[in-house]
């Protein structure tokens, strides 16, 4: 005979002598539960430190501590993070008669949605001296891949309004319904993580009860990825890429050479025409089937950029948009925004005719990044363009408005 097995008696067929549950009571308790979870989460959120796993944390903490020291911020993707040398920019601007102090707030992989959340937090700091905020975002970053599921970084920028913008971009995107549902679910999960402060208190406790930093890095080397948003050797947020383009594949090198030749031959008018026509793929697009054709600006993207501009102005500054030289040219949000009159202007450094040096293989790290030498050229071009804009130079070569 088998021995009787012990059971948890959570179900008593004789009842528990409590009042029978009703739908109304259940709904009331559910509403109370949600209200308390959201309320406690909101109360606790300001007390919790930013996650060290979020790549912008180090830069944000630095900026918050020195918020009244800077006139210029560069916010954006790795094309800001790796390309803009603040010290050089400051020196060149001073030489041009516009002394400023700048800080590189670039973070690898940061796109417009994350940018929006970050500028909102920066604006809330009310920096006293901030005059200009540069950004380069060319894509929304609405697509969450499997690798980025449930990261602290993803949760960090899914505040309610940014999530709403993300859902709007998803709804409007020219994609299948299954893609839309999948992406919407991923954004909602990330929002849930933001709402619940998922995992943020463990960062407070861990130094007191956890292992050494080396232990943690050995276990999860990607968790504390200093490479994505470090302060850099001079503490100004710039971390150059040291390697030259020599490691690139022959195909990549040929792609760059070819593009420069084509554009040099086509001339500025030809280039303008190509860019103005959203249905006209650039010649370079023939090199890869994966490249997407330029698309019109979605309403949700427009709202996203308008949010950014509003937040920059709320911080007492003016936005400056940059088109960075990128051989891949996946998306063209800023050019489309300029055409639609959404953004006030665009400093266009993605111009092989005016800035052929930025596409040379020897100043490149890869298809869309410049190495340290290239960053020097890029910063010089940016400072020159911006100074000309401040001087009101309307001659050929001035930034388009």
């Amino acid at each position, binding site marked *: *005979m*088998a*021995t009787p*097995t*012990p*059971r*948890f*008696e*959570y*179900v*008593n*067929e*004789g*009842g*528990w002598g*409590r009042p*029978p*549950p009703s739908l109304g009571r259940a709904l009331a*308790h559910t509403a*109370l*539960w*949600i*209200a*308390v*979870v959201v309320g*406690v*989460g909101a109360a*606790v959120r300001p007390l*919790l430190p930013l996650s060290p796993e979020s790549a912008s944390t180090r830069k944000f903490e630095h900026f918050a501590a020195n918020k009244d020291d800077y006139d210029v911020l560069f916010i954006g993707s790795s094309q800001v993070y790796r390309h803009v040398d603040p010290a050089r920019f400051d020196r060149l601007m001073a030489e041009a008669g516009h002394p400023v102090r700048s800080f590189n707030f670039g973070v690898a992989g940061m796109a417009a949605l994350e940018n929006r959340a970050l500028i909102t937090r920066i604006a809330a700091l009310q920096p006293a001296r901030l005059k200009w905020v540069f950004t380069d975002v060319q894509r929304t970053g609405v697509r969450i891949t499997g690798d980025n599921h*449930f*990261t*602290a970084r993803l*949760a960090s920028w899914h505040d309610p309004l940014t999530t709403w913008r993300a859902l709007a971009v998803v709804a409007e995107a020219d994609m299948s319904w299954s893609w839309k549902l999948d992406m919407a*679910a991923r954004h909602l*999960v990330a929002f*849930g*993580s933001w709402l*619940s*402060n*998922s*995992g*943020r*208190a*463990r960062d407070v*406790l*861990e*130094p*007191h*009860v*956890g*292992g*050494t930093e*080396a*232990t*943690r890095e*050995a*276990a*999860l080397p990607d968790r504390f990825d200093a490479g994505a948003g470090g302060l850099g050797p001079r503490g100004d947020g710039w971390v150059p890429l040291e390697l030259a383009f020599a490691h690139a594949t022959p195909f990549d090198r040929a792609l760059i050479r070819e593009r420069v030749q084509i554009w040099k031959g086509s001339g500025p008018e030809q280039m303008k025409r190509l860019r103005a026509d959203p249905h006209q793929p650039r010649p370079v697009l023939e090199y890869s089937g994966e490249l997407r054709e330029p698309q019109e600006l979605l309403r949700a993207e427009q709202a996203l950029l308008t949010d950014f501009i509003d937040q920059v102005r709320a911080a007492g500054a003016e936005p400056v948009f940059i088109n960075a030289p990128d051989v891949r040219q996946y998306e063209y949000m800023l050019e489309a925004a300029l055409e639609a009159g959404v953004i006030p202007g665009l400093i266009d450094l993605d111009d092989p005719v005016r800035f052929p040096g930025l596409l040379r293989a020897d100043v490149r790290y890869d298809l869309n990044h410049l190495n340290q030498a290239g960053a020097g050229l890029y910063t010089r071009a940016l400072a020159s363009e911006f100074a000309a804009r401040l001087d009101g130079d309307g001659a050929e070569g001035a930034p388009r408005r």
Partner: protein
Amino acid sequence: MIFTEFRFFFFFLIAFCVHWALRSNTSRKVWLLGCSYIFYGAWDWRFLGLILFSTVVDYVVGLRLGATDDVAARKRWLRVSLVGNLGLLGVFKYFNFFVDSGVDFANLLGLQVPPIVFEIGLPVGISFYTFQTLSYSLDVYFRRMQPTRNVLDLALFVAFFPQLVAGPIVRAIDFLPQLKVVRRLSDVDVRGCLILFLVGFIKKAVVSDNIAQYVDAYFGYFTNYDVASAYLAVPLYAAQLYCDFSAYSDMAIACAGLLGYNLMLNFDFPYFAPSIKAFWARWHISLSSWVRDYLFNPLGGSRGSELMVWRNISVTWLLLGLWHGADWTYVLFGGWMIPALLLQRYWGALGPHRKPELPPLVGNVLTMWWICVAIIFFRSENLDKAWGIVKVFVFFQAPGDQLLGDRLVWLLVGLTAVHWVSYKGYLAGLWDKLGSLGFTAGYATCCALVLTLINPNAAPFIYFQF
């Protein structure tokens, strides 16, 4: 789909609401069966066929066993169930293990046999549901219960989603009678279930998932670390394993309870057990009692000659080790229990006047140390690594000099203290003092605070691999 994931909460919310909204018992069971297949199919829908196969085989076997008194025929039908269920396990879980071991052995003898690779995935939870279905056929065979004529009941018993992939291993004799009675929500201790689910959630998402990084660091690079690190990492792994596995059981029992069904207790503070025998009476109780009732006792149990008892204990524990995984490390995990159990057997036979009385704490510490050595085999990927860590833990021969982290001691002390307070029952009844609204508000506050402590990069439950 993992119990700690957002999508499980949505899934369960829908399952729960529709279940109680339905009126008839049959429609509820059909609904739960559908939910269970969706739940399992979320991992890999192709393996649903195995569950269906197991269900059909045991349904037919049960009916045939109930229809005849002929001993030979009954044995034949039992054999069909054994071959069907153990055959599934053999093919999907152990085939490569036996083939690899055979190839290694042949190579050891000097025969040049090339490696044979059979690419096949391990279906989640196969060890659990095959044992469940086997228990049904065995109980019907031993006339402990009547076979069910209702294929829906049997299918739901096999696939019931709260415990489908990692236990507790439910017995048909416990579960099938519950399916005959219409469930009533007023019979459910909703508050108790919610508390148990939260406890399980904390164990898994807060404790186990956060400890894992230190355990992984040590077991991944143990040659860098010193002896003290081994004495931190191995007990931490014990804590991780317990919190991970018992958490699944807690949440499974809670989910089943919310749907109106009782499941058996699976863990009863095993790390406070004073002996190895007591430990196994409290750890994975549904498996250890299954093995006792369907393997150890039928083999003869503790009756017969000493040689037979040795044999029964050895066979039982080696197979119990192998149940966990298709690797020699798991066989040694089970085998490591044999000397302790035999020692305990002869120690007990000395009688009250001849054996020295040990303070209970000594028994606890010795048992815990023995379990720690066992789980080194359990956690290590291969025998070489296991032996390397055993040398550090048992013989104090550390290859490295790094320390995993001295502050981890406080983590261990804290976990032990909380566990002891729970063991003593000091936390029981705290919630009872709250009124209805107070409970909801307090529970929500706990949820909000617990969520801040979870590891967002949640790992699957350890026992899913079995």
